């Protein structure tokens, strides 16, 4: 690897100072003059038709400026997902801003804007709604049975989408097997728990042009979906990029109800309207889809896969917005492509119920797949007395193999084997005892899981947006402004992208500033999602910075009387390659390009030739061909209290091949945060609903517990197995999602190792442990 000066350094996030002194840049802080406060009236019923809505009293309440009911709302069916075009045929369009049929408890039926929040709340109570309550169904298995309540006309048996894909002939493969294993695994509904609530402010002008501030993960997606749902041309909607948002993790990756409702309330009242969701509303807005995965796996005696079959039933809730896409990502990346096997088949369906809508959540179908696949491998190894690491090494794809899905690519960097071997060594895997062999009531166990291939987007799906673009502009003080649509939701995007620009320009990281951006001023960028920013947006900012540097050197070349190709930029100064004889700060070159004349010391007065006049900048807009996969392995040690059923993760080690590490501090933070989310998924988090009424029973942090500082393990180590991905910016690949995908199966496997019993349903609560031990 060549010498790099900014990439790979432990640089600070450019927003950290601002955030640690209060963080003014969060969208929740946006206030406009004359702003109204909006509020949604939500249905108490899980399935009902609205017979009549009477808003007369509410409208008369002093301070109320606009009221919205389904009849005043465009009835354009849309899909709310940000990363696919509106008309993509793979997407189910079943959303309406306000509909006269509600399909989950909490679906909005009306909205109000008033001068004060309290008045808006009071107005909601004055709205009289008459419902015709319909039979509801909350369990996907029941929903598919004949005679179950039908939630949508377009979906017989409540099946929103049915899919299948595979390679080879799976039945033939099972004939080759020495053993066939069949197991079923079930995951639960969990919430992203971003800490900043979903919020937006929408303003409108006399021409009906809208300006939107929102806690979104994607300004262009929001612009597109909002315009579509409102029946407006896209040019009527401008979305302002938040400087950063308070977490998202996929949970802010779709058009909510609040943005279109605020837009309509603003158009009606002529004033800006703000809606901020309560925590309860946030809990019923987005969740990871529960999936039941039935696995049938054929292996040879030595552990070689001969056939793999899976059937996944994904519960999509009342709408199939994300569910229709999570399903194939889950099937493909979470199951089909994970290991080498000649005969593989996956079938899956997304099933409607009258529960809340599922949404994006870091891993997008992966955690559900990995829990099944990686748990079952452990079960197979236990049964056949094979080493789980050797088993995976035998079946894993290898570096330089063709990409299993996209034959135009190879796995040019793919160090899963090294992740497994070095991880095992560091974690002292060889000291693992046989399952359940410990004595005493508190038993310890070691477990392991990996995510062989993973990026949830950009593997060549034709309908998914993947391009990124950037503008890099040099300033007369030698700094650079980076304009890009990418939203920083806390994963350090602003830091990583500034580092890449700095490295490419030859300046220090703090000489790069992230500029204001909105959908009018910057090129399109796909969302902050799918572990794509470092790689895809990283490549875009690198190209933009590279072209700014090229221009810089062209202008500078006259000062050196040399060709631009003979120049370089080091530490913010231009010089002849390898020579320190003469160095000119970037600032001087930028000024030269902008100024009619300049005094340049030894050379005396020089004029800028007309051809060199202008701002020095570079732009880009490009789509990566693929997003090369990272490889991830995780080892964990747990302690299980066999009297109480409690599980305590004691320590964990991650080994990752993420290409070159751009920001080590950020990468470690991603791993540790990913573990917290994965551990919550494994052991405690469960967004439960009343099985009679469909109302959420866990809509606060008291009933929906996420791991706190005392539940986290004593240590989490990150081992980065650095490779140099040729297509990545400075050799980098992705990181974000796998950190959360692997903990659940690793913990489940560690629990098995501790107590010798297997729990195949998440979360693995103390009750389930005690039941499995026969103590309940």
């Amino acid at each position, binding site marked *: 690897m060549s010498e790099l000066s900014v990439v790979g350094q432990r640089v600070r996030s450019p927003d950290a100072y601002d955030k*640690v002194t209060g963080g003014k840049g969060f969208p929740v802080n946006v206030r406009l003059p004359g702003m109204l406060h909006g509020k949604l009236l939500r249905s108490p019923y899980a399935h009902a038709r609205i017979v009549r809505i009477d808003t007369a009293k509410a409208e008369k309440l002093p301070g109320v400026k606009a009221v919205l009911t389904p009849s005043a709302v465009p009835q354009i069916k849309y899909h709310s997902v940000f990363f696919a075009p509106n008309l993509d045929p793979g997407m189910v369009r079943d959303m309406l801003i306000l509909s006269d049929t509600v399909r989950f408890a909490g679906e909005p039926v009306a909205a109000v804007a008033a001068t004060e929040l309290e008045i808006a709340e009071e107005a909601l109570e004055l709205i009289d709604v008459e419902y015709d309550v319909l039979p509801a169904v909350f369990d996907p298995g029941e929903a598919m049975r004949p005679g179950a309540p039908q939630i949508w006309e377009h979906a017989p048996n409540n099946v929103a989408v049915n899919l299948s894909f595979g390679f080879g002939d799976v039945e033939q493969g099972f004939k080759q097997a020495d053993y066939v294993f069949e197991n079923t695994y079930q995951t639960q509904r969990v919430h992203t728990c*971003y800490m900043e609530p979903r919020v937006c402010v929408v303003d409108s002008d006399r021409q009906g042009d809208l300006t939107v501030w929102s806690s979104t993960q994607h300004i262009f997606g929001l612009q597109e979906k909002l315009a579509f749902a409102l029946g407006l041309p896209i040019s009527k909607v401008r979305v302002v990029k938040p400087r950063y*948002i308070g977490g998202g993790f996929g949970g802010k990756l779709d058009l909510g109800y609040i943005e279109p409702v605020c837009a309509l309330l603003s158009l009606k009242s002529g004033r800006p309207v703000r809606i901020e969701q309560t925590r309860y509303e946030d809990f019923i807005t987005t969740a990871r889809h529960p999936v039941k995965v039935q696995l049938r796996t054929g292996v040879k005696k030595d552990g070689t896969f001969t056939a793999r079959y899976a059937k996944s039933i994904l519960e999509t809730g009342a709408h199939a917005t994300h569910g229709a896409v999570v399903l194939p990502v889950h099937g493909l990346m979470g199951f089909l492509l994970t290991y080498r096997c000649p005969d593989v088949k996956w079938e899956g369906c997304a099933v409607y119920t009258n529960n809340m809508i599922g949404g994006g959540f870091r891993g997008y179908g992966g955690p559900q797949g990995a829990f099944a696949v990686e748990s079952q491998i452990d079960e197979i190894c236990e049964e056949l007395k094979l080493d789980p690491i050797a088993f995976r090494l035998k079946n894993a794809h290898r570096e330089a193999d063709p990409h299993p899905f996209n034959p135009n690519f190879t796995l040019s960097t793919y160090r899963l084997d090294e992740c497994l071997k070095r991880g095992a060594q560091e974690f002292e895997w060889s000291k693992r005892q046989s399952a359940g062999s410990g004595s005493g009531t508190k038993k310890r166990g070691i477990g392991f899981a990996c995510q062989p291939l993973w990026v949830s987007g950009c593997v060549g799906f034709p309908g998914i947006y993947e391009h990124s673009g950037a503008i890099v502009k040099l300033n007369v003080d030698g700094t650079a402004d980076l304009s890009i649509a990418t939203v920083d939701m806390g994963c350090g995007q602003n830091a990583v992208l500034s580092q890449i620009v700095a490295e490419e320009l030859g300046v220090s990281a703090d000489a790069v500033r992230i500029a204001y951006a909105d959908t009018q001023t910057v090129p399109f960028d796909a969302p902050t999602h799918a572990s794509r920013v470092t790689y895809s947006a990283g490549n875009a900012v690198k190209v933009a910075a590279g072209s700014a540097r090229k221009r810089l050197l062209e202008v500078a070349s006259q000062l050196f009387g040399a060709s631009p190709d003979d120049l370089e930029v080091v530490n913010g100064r231009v010089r002849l390659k390898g020579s320190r004889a003469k160095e000119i700060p970037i600032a001087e070159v930028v000024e030269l390009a902008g100024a009619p004349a300049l005094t340049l010391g030894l050379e005396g007065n020089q004029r800028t030739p007309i051809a060199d006049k202008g701002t020095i900048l570079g732009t880009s807009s490009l789509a990566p061909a693929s997003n090369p996969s990272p490889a991830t392995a995780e080892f964990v040690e747990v302690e299980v209290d066999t009297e109480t059923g409690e599980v305590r993760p004691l320590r964990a080690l991650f080994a990752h091949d993420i290409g070159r590490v751009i920001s080590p501090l950020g990468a*470690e933070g991603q791993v540790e945060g990913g*573990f917290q*989310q994965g551990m919550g998924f494994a052991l405690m988090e469960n967004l439960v609903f009343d099985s009679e009424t469909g109302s959420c029973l866990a809509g606060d*942090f008291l009933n929906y517990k996420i791991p706190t*500082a005392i539940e986290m393990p004593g240590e989490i180590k990150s081992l980065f197995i650095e490779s140099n991905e040729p297509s990545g910016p400075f050799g980098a690949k992705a990181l974000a999602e796998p950190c959360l995908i692997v903990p659940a199966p690793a913990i489940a496997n560690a629990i098995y190792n501790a107590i010798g019993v297997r729990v195949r349903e998440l979360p693995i609560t103390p009750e389930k442990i005690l039941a499995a031990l026969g103590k309940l």
Partner: protein
Amino acid sequence: MKQLLPISLNVNGDSYDIAIPPWRTLLEVLRENLGLTGTKKSCLEGQCGACTVLLDGKPVNSCLLLAVEAQGKEITTIEGLARDGVLHPLQKAFVEHGAIQCGFCSPGMALAAKALLDRNPNPSEDEVRHAIVGHLCRCTGYFQIIEAIRDAAAEMARKDVQA
């Protein structure tokens, strides 16, 4: 007409005289009346710690406290932690250690940590974990926050010795 109650608050050494409906929480008053948006609002039910401020040096959830009850006390918000443009050692350590990802929990965390170090300048890792147990962070997994707090404690001890 709403009944407004005149109150006076001392926030970060400045005094504010305002008139509010008596049921307003300190959190709402800080954010909406005084424009001090550093104090964060996340659950509104005392379950996440994002809205933590110091009241006479003790951490409280400002979403559960009526503004009226904060009269006569010294209120410290995140805006008051840095003095004369110089970051508090805790803030500096948060930045250096990567303890801030999305940053939404950071103001509450930093103030809880300040209260801890004020009463226990040399906390063990366990004591740090317990001090921030009421503060939810969904981004960091807490490790870099814990390291930052312990590092700030060490740094402050070094400065004390020098002084």
